[in-house]
C-alpha cells in the first residue's frame, strides 16, 4: 500500500554543506517531493551566520535530480527584481525544480540590514502581495518561445514575445522585463504560511497542527491548490490522521537518515516540481 501524503523536509538547519547535501540526498531517495531551506538576513538566535538559502538551493540543484528545492527568500528585505531573477535562475539550473518559500521577516533588526522602514499589519500584507504578483509577472515577461534565432532577418528574439510588466505596487514599481528568460516551469512554485494573509496567491499553503482541519479547509477555500501541514517528527499515528485532511506534510526532523523506510510518501511523477505536485502547468 502506498502512502497518501506528499512529503517535504525543512533542511535549513543543517550544520554544514556536506550535511545539507547528505540530508537532501536522503530525502530525495526516500521519495520526498521537495525540501525547504529556512533563512534570514540575521543569524538564528545564538547561532553562526548561514549561507544564503538561494545559494544553498542552487548548489543542491546540481547534487540532486528529482527533488524540489524551495529556498526562503524574504519579500520584505530584498529587491523584488533580484528575487524574481534568482528564483528563475534556480529553476533553469535545476531544470524545473524551483520553489519559493515566501519569507516575511519584518523585525526592526532585519529591516535595518537594508535601511528600509518596518512594515507591519496591512502594509506588510500588501507588500507580500505585491512582491508575489510582480515575481509572477516577471516570470511571464518572456514567452517561452521568445528566442527565435532567425538568421534570415537577423533577429535573435521576437521582441513581441518579451514584455515590459509596468507593475505599480503600493511601495515600488518595476518596468521589466526580467533579465532571465522564462523559467522551465513557467512560474516557480510559491509556498507560504497561511498566517501571512496571502493564501489566495500561494500554490502550497503551510498550516500548523493547531486546528489543522479548519485551517486546511480555509486555505483551500481561499484558493490554495495544495495544503501541507508542518509536522515536527514523523509520528505514524499523526500522519494517518492527517491523510485526507491535508495534501502533504513538511517535517522538521533532524534524524534525516532515519526517514528512509520510516515514511511512505505518495509516489510522484513528472519532470518538473509543478508536475510532481500536480499543479496547473504554467509554461
Amino acid at each position, binding site marked *: 500500500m502506498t502512502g497518501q501524503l506528499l512529503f517535504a523536509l525543512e533542511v535549513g538547519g543543517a550544520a554544514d*554543506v556536506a550535511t545539507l547535501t547528505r540530508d537532501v540526498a536522503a530525502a530525495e531517495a526516500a521519495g520526498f517531493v521537495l525540501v525547504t531551506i529556512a533563512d534570514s538576513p540575521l543569524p538564528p538566535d545564538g547561532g553562526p551566520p548561514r549561507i544564503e538559502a538561494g545559494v544553498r538551493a542552487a548548489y543542491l540543484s546540481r547534487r540532486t535530480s528529482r527533488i524540489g528545492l524551495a529556498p526562503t527568500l524574504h519579500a520584505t528585505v*530584498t529587491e523584488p527584481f*533580484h528575487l524574481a531573477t534568482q528564483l528563475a535562475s534556480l529553476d533553469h539550473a535545476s531544470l524545473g525544480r524551483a520553489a519559493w518559500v515566501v519569507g516575511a521577516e519584518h523585525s526592526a533588526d532585519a529591516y535595518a*540590514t537594508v535601511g528600509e522602514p518596518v512594515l507591519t499589519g496591512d502594509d506588510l500584507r500588501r507588500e507580500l502581495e505585491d512582491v508575489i504578483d510582480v515575481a509572477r509577472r516577471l516570470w511571464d515577461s518572456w514567452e517561452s518561445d521568445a528566442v527565435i534565432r532567425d538568421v534570415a532577418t537577423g533577429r535573435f528574439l521576437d521582441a513581441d514575445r518579451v514584455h515590459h510588466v509596468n507593475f505599480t505596487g503600493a511601495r515600488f514599481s518595476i518596468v521589466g522585463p526580467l*533579465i532571465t528568460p522564462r523559467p522551465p516551469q513557467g512560474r516557480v512554485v510559491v509556498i507560504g504560511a497561511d498566517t501571512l494573509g496571502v493564501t489566495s496567491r500561494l500554490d502550497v499553503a503551510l498550516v500548523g497542527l493547531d486546528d489543522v482541519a479548519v485551517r486546511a479547509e480555509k486555505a483551500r477555500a481561499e484558493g490554495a491548490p495544495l495544503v501541507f501541514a508542518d509536522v515536527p517528527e514523523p509520528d505514524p499515528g499523526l500522519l494517518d490522521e492527517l491523510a485526507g485532511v491535508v495534501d502533504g506534510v513538511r517535517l522538521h526532523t533532524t534524524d534525516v537518515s532515519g526517514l528512509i523506510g520510516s515514511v511512505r510518501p505518495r509516489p510522484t511523477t513528472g519532470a518538473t516540481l509543478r508536475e510532481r505536485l500536480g499543479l496547473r502547468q504554467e509554461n
Partner: protein
Amino acid sequence: MLHLGLFFAGVGPQLIWSAPDFAPHTHIDTFVRTAQTLERGLFDAFFLGDGLRVRENRGRIHDLDVAGRPDAITQLAALAAETGKIGLVATQNTTYNYPADLARRLASLDAISGGRAGWNIVTTDNAWTGENFRHGGWLPHERRYERARAFVETAQALWAGESVDRHTDLINVTAPPTVPARPVLFQAGDSAGGRDLAARHADVVFSANTDFDKAIGYAEDLRRRLAAHGRRPDAVRILPGAQVILGDTPEEAREKAAWIRREQTNGPRALAFLEQYWGKDLSGFDPDGPLPDIEPSDSELDPSRGTIAIEHRTGKRERIAGWRRLAADRGLSIRELVIEVTPQHSTFVGTPGRIAEEWARYDEARAVDGFNILPQLLPGTVEDIVDKLVPELQERGLYRTAYTGSTLREHLDLP
C-alpha cells in the same frame, strides 16, 4: 606566468548566435560544459557579466543580439557543485543592491565553493536601469564610486566578522557579519574614479587597455595609484579583456576574424546602431549603401542599449557629422562605417604559436598579468583556447601545468 579568465557577458553583439554550433545560451548544460572545459584548461576564473535591464532600441526590446541571462551568483553557486578548482566571478552592481544583502550572497558563494568566489564591482546608475528597483535612479552619477567605496568597505567588514552600523546619505546599513569569506575583488572601470577604486580595493583589474603600449601605460598608472594608497605594486593582477581568434594558419585565422567581425556587425545591427544616434527608423536604408541622408532627431541618446558610455550620450550631431566626413573620405557603407567606429576589445588573431609568442612579450614587460578572454563562439572559442593555445603557453613556461592551490586567491597568487 600568465593568468587566464573567461568573461562570458552572456548578452550583446559579440556572441555569434548564428553559428551552427551555438550552444543554448541560458541552458545550464552550456554553463557546466564551459566551466568544466575551462577547468580542464587550468583557467583561473569563469567570469559572468550582469546587466539589470534588457537592452532596448527606441523603446522596444532590442531583438538582434543575444539577450537574457541567469542571475550570476545563483548560476555560479550551481557551477560550484560541478567544478572543483576554477574561480567563479560574479559581476554585481553597487547602486541597485542592498550592501548587506549582496555581501551576504557573495560570502555565501565563497563559502559554498570553498573560497573560489570573485566579485566584479560595477556601478551602473542610470535611471533607466533603476526603473526595475525600489528607489529608481537615486544616485547622482558623479557619486557612484563614492557609493561603491562605502559599499565595498561594508562588505569587507561583514566578511571579516565585524558588525556594520553605517549611516550616511549614500549608505544605510546595520547588519551582523556574514559567513567568513574573502571574495576576490575585480574592478573594470577605466575612469579616474574606477582606477582609484581599483587602487584602493581591487585584487584584479579587468581593464580595456589591452594593446601593448596602452597596457604598459596602464600598468604604470595603476602602480603609481597603488603606491599612493600604501599598497604594494604587485598587490593587483592586471587582466585586460581580449578576444582570441585562432587558426591553424595565419590566413585561416585572418579569414575567421573577418567573418566574425562581419557577423558581429551584420546589416540589421549596423542599422540599429545608427538608429540609436538618429533616433529614427532607418530600416528602409541599405546597410551596404551610403549613410542615411535624413537628419537625426533632436533628442539626445538614452542608455537603453546599455553599452553607450556616458560621454557618448551627448553631442550626437557633431558625432554624426564626423561620421559623414569619414564615410565620404573613405567611401564607406553604413556597415563599413559601423565596423570602423564601434569600440571593440582588442583581438589577438593568429596561430596558437604566434599568439603565445606575442603574450610572452607582454609577460616579459610586465604589461599584464594575463587576460580575460571574451568569447565570440560558444563552445568553439573555449575549446580552441584550451586545446590549442594553452599547450603553446605551457610549452613556453608562460602558464601553469596544474593547479597548485584550491582557492581563487591562490590561483591568482594574491595575499
